[in-house]
């Protein structure tokens, strides 16, 4: 065995210390792999559900992250084992695809592996196990489809959306004000959603955080917030009905890309050059003025002289705005990004009802709010919170909620709750009794792992929750009912389906490995 357990029951890998190239074969290899996968799942198990605990992660540079988002935990962990890396990948792909359920998918994969181990011990060939799992997963997939409910919502009735987002948020540290955050997430998604095409571009939602204040102060701004201030301290701090010129060229003398030299050899040339230079600055500002701009947002820096000229001509300006933000501003204000001064024209300007600078706290922290934009398709969620880690965790939680809301708009089907998988499991048993009974039972048992972990984390007895009401779930919050429909605990169908598919796939992959060769450390 390449794996041993220390006195705390933690697995550690001895391979590295051995000098020669190590090799594991057959059942040993599979068992080692399964053990590694289970170890990863065990870490995440306690983070599941509304009463799940957080993990504290210290990065190589000493920064601290506190989170209960499965994908983040795994990404930040120093994972060395190849199989463990597969599990990390698994959670990441769930994150990319769905955005939520990253913990659940790993726990499920872990449970599947655990069950597979038992089967392997009974002498069943791994390929048979893998095939059985595949079959079972398909049944489960279809069944979920059948028990899911169509989901009704409209722009006026966002309540169902909010409820589903709240389920996602309730397992995070922000559950204190999950209602408010869920509403923010849903409103943000609806603001940018293309309801006809049923698509949501999450890039249009900017999530900006600033430490200080309290979580309740988190707000949704129909516009853009840029962490910048006016280039000249004496420029106006508030502009109404702003016409915004969005520039990607610096307010500086031109730097042609081809190599060139300007030789100065006479006094006249020196003087003409000087005049040219002054004229150039003047022209730049004049062009902005001519186009009718009342605010200039520029990707690059300004020369002192240009800065003063802008100030002088009463044209407020913001410099060093990042490319992504610039794009968002362009979308929000309906303006065009202009790469050259010559191309500035009135119709390329963006419009915003109000641009204001807001300062925070006691330090010189200012932010620029661009609001009441011509096109409200870009929104910003502005998070406040007690400390840096809180903000980061809120960002991650909101991301999950946003993803859930987006998935709902895309595919409007819901499945009631996590814990009804138990019901599902029993159904599966009936379906697959012929031939592969052993296999399907183990798959069903694995599906039980998620509600089991939930119940454990909530300090409830798992056995109590085995009643067979089709809407039955686990009452994590002590509400007093097990009916998830009454509790309004919903999840998206696609999220659940993906979890099952992805977990089965990875488990299949792991089971098929029968030889592990690792290079020796030199």
């Amino acid at each position, binding site marked *: 065995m390449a794996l041993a357990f220390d006195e705390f029951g933690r697995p550690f890998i001895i391979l590295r210390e051995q000098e020669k190239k190590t090799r594991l074969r057959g059942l040993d290899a599979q068992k080692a792999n399964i053990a590694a996968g289970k170890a990863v799942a065990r870490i995440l198990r306690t983070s599941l559900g509304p009463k799940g605990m957080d993990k504290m992660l210290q990065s190589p540079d000493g920064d601290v992250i506190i989170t209960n988002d499965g994908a983040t935990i795994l990404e930040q962990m*120093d994972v060395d084992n190849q199989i463990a890396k597969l599990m990390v990948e698994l959670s990441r792909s769930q994150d990319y695809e769905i955005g939520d359920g990253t913990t659940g998918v790993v726990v499920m994969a872990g449970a599947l592996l655990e069950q597979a181990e038992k089967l392997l011990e009974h002498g069943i060939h791994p390929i048979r196990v893998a095939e059985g799992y595949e079959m079972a997963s398909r049944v489960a997939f279809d069944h979920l489809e059948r028990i899911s409910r169509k989901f009704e919502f409209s722009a006026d009735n966002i309540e169902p959306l909010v409820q589903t987002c709240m389920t996602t948020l309730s397992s995070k540290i922000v559950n204190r004000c999950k209602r408010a955050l869920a509403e923010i997430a849903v409103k943000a998604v609806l603001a940018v959603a293309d309801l006809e095409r049923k698509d949501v571009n999450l890039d249009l939602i900017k999530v900006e955080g600033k430490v200080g204040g309290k979580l309740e102060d988190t707000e949704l701004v129909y516009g853009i917030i840029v962490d910048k201030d006016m280039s000249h301290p004496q420029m106006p701090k508030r502009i109404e009905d702003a016409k915004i010129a969005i520039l990607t060229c610096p307010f500086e003398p031109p730097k042609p890309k081809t190599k060139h030299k*300007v030789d100065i050899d*006479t006094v006249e040339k020196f003087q003409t050059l*000087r005049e040219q230079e002054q004229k150039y600055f003047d022209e730049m500002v004049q062009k902005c003025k001519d186009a009718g701009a009342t605010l200039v947002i520029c990707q690059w820096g300004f020369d002192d002289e240009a800065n003063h000229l802008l100030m002088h001509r009463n044209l407020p300006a913001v410099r060093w705005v990042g490319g992504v933000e610039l794009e968002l501003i362009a979308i929000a204000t309906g303006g065009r990004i202009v790469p050259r001064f010559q191309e500035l024209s009135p119709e390329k300007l963006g419009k915003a009802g109000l641009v204001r600078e807001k300062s925070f706290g*006691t330090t010189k922290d200012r932010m620029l709010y661009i609001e009441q934009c011509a096109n409200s398709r870009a929104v910003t969620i502005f998070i406040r919170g007690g400390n840096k880690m809180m903000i980061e965790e809120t960002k991650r939680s909101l991301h999950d909620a946003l993803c859930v809301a987006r998935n709902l708009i895309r595919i409007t089907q819901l499945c009631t709750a996590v814990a009804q998988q138990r019901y599902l499991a029993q159904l599966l048993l009936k379906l697959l009794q012929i031939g592969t009974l052993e296999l399907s039972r183990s798959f069903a048992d694995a599906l039980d792992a998620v509600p089991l972990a939930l119940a454990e984390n909530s300090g409830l007895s798992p056995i109590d929750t085995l009643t067979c009401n089709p809407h039955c779930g686990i009452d994590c919050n002590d509400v007093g009912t097990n009916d998830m429909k009454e509790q309004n605990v919903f999840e998206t169908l696609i999220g659940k389906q993906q979890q099952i598919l992805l977990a089965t796939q990875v488990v299949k992959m792991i089971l098929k490995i029968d030889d592990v060769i690792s290079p020796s450390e030199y």
Partner: protein
Amino acid sequence: MERMLKDDAREEKGELARMASFVGAMAISDLVKTTLGPKGMDKILQSTGRGRNVTVTNDGATILKSLHIDNAAAKVLVDISKVQDDEVGDGTTSVVVLAGELLREAEKLINMKIHPMTIIAGYRMALECARDTLLQKTMDNKENTDKFRTDLMNIAMTTLSSKILSQDKEYFAELAVDAVLRLKGSTNLESIQILKKPGGSLKDSFLDEGFILDKKIGIGQPKRIENAKILVANTAMDTDKVKIYGARVRVDSMSKVADIEAAEKQKMREKVQKIIAHGINCFVNRQLIYNFPEELFADAGILAIEHADFEGIERLALVTGGEIASTFDNPESVKLGHCKVIEEIMIGEDRLIHFSGVAMGQACTIVLRGASEHVLDEAERSLHDALCVLSQTVNDTRVLFGGGWPEMVMAKEVDELARKTPGKKSHAIDAFSRALQAIPTIIADNAGLDSAELISQLRAEHHKENCTAGIDVITGTVGDMQKLGIQESFKVKQAILLSATEAAEMILRVDEIITCAPRRREDRM
């Protein structure tokens, strides 16, 4: 388990993890605990850098900022203290101590086998209750200017009383209040300049209505100007470079070099002429002024000040009401700054330039005097705290009493709540109230008073309606905070309460710590 070694990637689970974070957090809170309150003690911090600089302080944020911490939970506490500093400026110690006490109480509950999530639920309920109580008990004197000023004075004195300036707190409170009221509601403390000059005693510090620039006047230029017209500029006054990219001078004979040099000089001369044409008699530039233009200015009888730092320039522009100019072609439209008198003054043995009788009164300068650099640094920090609190209070005018009064009021209400709440949560709510009471206890302990006796008296006192009792540290008894004029800003108290609970909650939720292998240097193989 007290120290987490930075060795290799490691993880700690369950009880171990919880213990590691509790121990770390409590160690931090115990560290700063003794600095709390009017009789709190200071800490000496020695840097590991060259020179082994020593800082003496009792500002929580400053202490925590300079610590090298390896414990993840401790870092959370350091972070909340930093945020408190940025957001409201004061209460940096209290927030850490409160979070520490909350965790200490939570540890006891966990030993009683209560699940952390239950504790968190209880804490949240208690927090709601405590905040509502605070909101009800605030006083607001926004309408009454005189009373508001007294409030501000009281707040400033309360803040300063725990700092090095406590001896002259009335004097400094007056300084701070004056300075902040000049800002007229802006929280931009940049316009209050604090100058530190060693020598004299703290009492010799003063608030100057005008503006003091830590620069010397050029030689041969007037030392005193009355009715000054000031042009504040940010422009290159060395050799005015040609900014067009790729331009370079290429000549083939010496005479041409001379020509170009002359042209350059001419260009500079013209620039200076243009500046002079503004009709000014004082020119302040952010960048260097070379000898040649300086000489030209001196000839024109203009005071030229070079190389003021950027904040200096901004402040000066604010004070004198001018704009910061970089081009000089349209003298008629550039707003010039004005002031009555510019003169060179001496503070200690340094010569400074003093602008008095300025047009706009927003900015001002506080000159701190003191026996040593350390005293001055600490005085600056204390004054900064006071200024921050005051500027926040001007915006949010709600105030509370100090001296442990708010904690006791909250504790009372939270206690009530605990009695009404069924279930295990009530233990947690109880614990919250105990943590709140720990703050006055620590203040009393630090003052060398019998805290057990005092707190019980205080609690009895608070059972009456509308009680204003708190700890009077000076006499060592329970005193009437209203009479003593000990007040605190509501905003600060609220921020302390919220971020401490948030941090405690965060640490409580953790059941596993994973530490990555520290990034090694390149030489490891």
